[in-house]
């Protein structure tokens, strides 16, 4: 099993709930798609070419400040459980991790991680540069990835067209190659049934939404990833400003929905929150979907100030650590299908108990 302790903070500083708007926004991600001019793109390249691409990227990255100290992984040399672990930490895509049943790992698939920046190599594009930040932090995520882009761009020959901009394997990413996404928790809009109207409005102004794990993943636990739909015709700053403006509007709608619920249905909301907390605190088996939905209730309670004994950081960590590969890693062995819900419930219980202990006000005499 791979040793993720090599990564400072396990590559998960984005979970710490320290960023702006952390009561509503879990994290912000900005990624840039880049390809190397002389090489064929992913669907046409063979194993030898992928090896060369990986070698070129690793050698270029070694000279940069953004990735000079990076921890390197080769996906094609990792066990399925380890690949899934990296995927659950949002460090590699489902595609590169090849975790679908019968999924094949591409030769030369690589990952370089340093602090909150990383690069996937030989994914759909030769390079996918990404920065992941805690909370609503488009600007700082962009700064991080833009610096990395400049540094790598000086050492590698990126495929760039004078009119179309950066060229990518899929035409939906051409131009800036930029996809920025904000993972936002919207239980208020879901409970007041306003969410469909809002999501529909967002798709009409160039935004798209996905689930917790990006493209093709379902929305669970009322967590929506809002991101830009188009990548060409607008500058990076325009795309980020547009997304930022709309996310702020969605956050305002969410705050309003929460206040209305709390005003008009206080008992119902309090009951929902405490029931969710009670189940997580004492249940003996928990499925992943149920956990996500209950965590949403608890997160709402924390946001509304109804639950004093839980912190957002603990809730964010539960999003990741209650998943199958992480539960298996904690046990140090593979878990059978029927064992997972039991282990998950035990882990969640333990985490919430520790939270109570940690957050309970001290009963001792105040220091003099």
């Amino acid at each position, binding site marked *: 099993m791979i040793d993720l302790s090599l990564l400072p903070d396990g590559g998960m500083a984005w979970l710490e709930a320290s960023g702006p708007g952390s009561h509503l926004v879990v994290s912000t991600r900005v990624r840039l798609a880049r390809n190397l001019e002389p090489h064929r793109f992913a669907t046409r390249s063979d194993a030898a070419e992928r090896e060369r691409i990986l070698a070129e990227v690793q050698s270029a990255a070694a000279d940069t400040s953004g990735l000079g100290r990076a921890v390197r992984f080769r996906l094609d040399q990792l066990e399925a459980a380890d690949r899934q672990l990296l995927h659950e930490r949002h460090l590699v895509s489902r595609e590169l991790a090849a975790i679908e049943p019968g999924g094949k790992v591409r030769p030369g698939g690589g990952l370089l991680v340093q602090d909150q920046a990383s690069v996937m190599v030989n994914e759909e594009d030769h390079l996918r540069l990404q920065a992941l930040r805690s909370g609503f932090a488009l600007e700082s995520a962009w700064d991080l990835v833009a610096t990395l882009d400049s540094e790598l761009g000086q050492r590698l020959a990126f495929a760039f067209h004078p009119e179309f901009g950066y060229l990518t394997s899929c035409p939906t990413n051409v*131009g800036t190659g930029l996809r920025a996404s904000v993972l936002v928790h919207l239980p208020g809009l879901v409970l007041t049934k306003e969410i469909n109207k809002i999501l529909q409005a967002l798709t009409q102004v160039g935004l798209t939404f996905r689930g917790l794990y990006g493209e093709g993943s379902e929305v669970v636990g009322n967590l929506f990833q809002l991101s830009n739909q*188009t990548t*060409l015709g607008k500058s990076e700053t325009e795309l980020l400003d547009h997304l930022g403006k709309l996310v702020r509007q969605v956050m305002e709608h969410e705050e309003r929905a929460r206040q209305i619920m709390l005003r008009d249905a206080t008992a119902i909301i309090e009951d929902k929150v405490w029931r969710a907390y009670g189940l997580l605190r004492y249940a003996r088996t928990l499925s992943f979907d149920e956990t996500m939905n209950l965590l949403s209730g608890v997160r709402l309670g924390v946001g509304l100030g109804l639950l004093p004994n839980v912190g957002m950081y603990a809730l964010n960590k539960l999003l990741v650590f209650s998943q199958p590969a992480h539960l298996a890693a904690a046990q140090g062995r593979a878990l059978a299908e029927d064992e997972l819900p039991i282990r998950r419930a035990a882990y969640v219980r333990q985490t919430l108990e520790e939270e109570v202990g940690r957050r309970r006000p001290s009963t001792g005499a105040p220091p003099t």
Partner: protein
Amino acid sequence: MKCSSCGERDGVVSLTQIVEGDVRTVSLCAKCAAEKGIETGVGVADTPLGGFLAALGEAAGPDQALAAALEIACPGCGATLKDFRETGRVGCAQCYSAFDAPLRELLRRLHGSTHHTGRKYAGGERPREREAPRQDNARELREQLRRAIASEQFELAAELRDRLRDRE
């Protein structure tokens, strides 16, 4: 609300027209709106390849010509438009020059533009051997313009007209 043009499909876009001070709002389905050159944003992004092949069909004319166009290979990687239709992925950077017209049309449909206005790439340390941007051939442009007008692709026609004007 049903489409006011065909009366069959559901309307997805509202069009407000002001004619001599008279305000009229009509609802159009994606197909009728596209025929009138109105971007709806609906359907286009969902089926980029569908739109792409439609554009390709219009450009290539009869089926035989379409079949031939699908077999032309990119000099860079050997990929054909048929490969692109099957995978939805471009084979290499050169494909964007080899299949300039259909990919340009696809980019316009996907993003509403073909002009990158973001970060300019200054180039890496290695010498880059990109060929100079292909000079538009005026006769080819005029022919593309004629086809664009015939197939009522007015946005494309306007772009082609501007490019012709720039040359002259």
